[in-house]
């Protein structure tokens, strides 16, 4: 969502700090580079942004500075790509990222009720994060799970054929 990403980037405090990563993580990053031809290391940008997000929780300025240096790009090149894609969080989010599909098949199969249930249980609106920093709820577009609607994704895990009971169990199981 372009407009929202812009809102967040406006809030970013820019710094020259460069993030540091363990040798294992740096090795993992290097392994991505081997997939692409010489001189085309920018291709690894999206996979590497996922690594940054996993390690740092979101796409922060020091992480971006690191990637720019690692891939020999301008810092603005990294921001340019990162801000286009909805899966990159341009601000810190909760520990568990609950992404509820709001598109048509889910919508007509009971998504509104699921959304209301989750949000009232957590006491937040879609887009919000609980005060304890445990949950963020985001509404997202079709996740390729329409035959098992309604559904949501927590991190990368799919949860399908949802009803209130399943949602309750799921929320209880996340610590």
């Amino acid at each position: 969502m372009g407009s929202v990403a812009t809102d967040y980037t406006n809030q970013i405090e820019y710094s020259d700090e460069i993030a540091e990563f363990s040798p294992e993580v740096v090795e993992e990053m290097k392994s991505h580079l081997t997939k692409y031809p010489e001189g085309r290391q920018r291709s690894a940008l999206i996979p590497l942004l996922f690594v940054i997000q996993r390690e740092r929780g979101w796409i922060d300025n020091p992480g971006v500075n690191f990637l720019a240096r690692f891939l020999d790009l301008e810092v603005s090149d990294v921001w340019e790509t990162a801000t286009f894609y909805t899966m990159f969080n341009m601000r810190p989010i909760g520990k568990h990222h609950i992404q509820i599909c709001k598109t048509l098949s889910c919508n007509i199969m009971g998504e509104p009720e699921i959304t209301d249930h989750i949000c009232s249980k957590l006491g937040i609106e879609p887009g919000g994060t609980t005060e304890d920093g445990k949950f963020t709820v985001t509404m997202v577009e079709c996740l390729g799970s329409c035959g098992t609607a309604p559904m949501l994704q927590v991190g990368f895990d799919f949860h399908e054929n949802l009803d209130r009971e399943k949602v309750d169990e799921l929320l209880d199981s996340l610590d």
Partner: protein
Amino acid sequence: MEIKAIGCEPLQLKMMHVENGHTLEVYKEHGGYKSLEKAMNMSADEIIDEVKDSALRGRGGAGFPTGMKWSFVPRDSPKPKYIVCNADESEPGTFKDRYLLERDPHALIEGMLIGAFALGVETCYIYYRGEYNYLIEIMDKAIEEAKAANLVGKNILGSDFTCNFYTHTGAGAYICGEETALLSSLEGFRGHPRMKPPFPAVEGVYACPTVVNNVETLTAVPQVIEMGGIAWRDLGTERSGGTKLWSVSGHVKKPGVYELPMGYKDMEKFILEDCGGMLRDDKKLKAVIPGGSSVYIMRADQIEGQDVSMCYEGLVEAGSMVGSGGFMVMDETVDVVESTKNLTEFYRHESCGWCTPCREGTDWLVKIFDRVSAGGGRPEDAQLLLDISDNIEGKSFCPLGDAAAWPIQSAVKRFPEDFKKHLLGNEN
């Protein structure tokens, strides 16, 4: 959820219910990689001709003939060539590729290898939508297995054919399913579409000749080679060869992934019998979007008693399109104003922002829908929605603009009573 073939032997779905069907060993037990061996004893022209004969058309949505696309790749290019599998699957209502990637990864590798052998390709990428990240491990393992068995990598099966495979992910952007945007994204840029021509077959990733094909298109290739193009085509119709996967969702008892021979008759029977009938017995069928969110919505009376043939030409005749085969069924509880609003919000969200008609137009459309939905619609709003859609269609840089316009154009024209209900009484 059902996963099954109706009216034909399971071909695409052959491995779906086979235990460990995703492993090389079991895949081979079921005849896997025989087609590759067969193809490697054929010439490039022979392979491409079989694919042309098969009348296999792209399963990603556009339905472009696959053999023809392959024949556009220059033979004598000094540049390296690529095959990129489009596993971005983001068209609302579509979820078939996901099961192929999860349960039959070797069929995809085999299909890509056959294409690579014919076209002189040494590098294959599989571009997953970011949300399918959890599936990547399965493919990476399959690639490793294939490598260990000398099916991928250097000197495949002792020949001088060399081909490497890599997985890659996007990060949440429907537009990256559009083939040129996908290539921008694969190069690490924002997912903006590129001008065509040059077509990817001539200038694709890294400005090199590139074939972009959908998952289901590529997994059909081993069957085409095994059976022969004509025999495979004859499973379907003359212009729509073979079988096709339909992702069925919405108000039916048995949603799922169904494999049907092309030209399957008829759509009404498919809904009312094969898919178990309407979810709630007392609710009537109201509308179907048969090919993913981008195609024309159909009224029940365009389906009931109409013998609609489920193939490219049959659906055009019936007033819609096959698209990606994302088959969404809606009963009479659905308000078409609301369902169309939902899809328009999707297109506004996914517009990449590159060109004005699509970026601004989808935003205006949503604003009008918001007004109508909230009860403040003006009598002229239905016409206004049409006018804006007409100014997006054909005037946008890439087909996403058309895809945003078509659902609205068809909804306003085919469900005037739903719009009237919202707009009546608002004359003042």
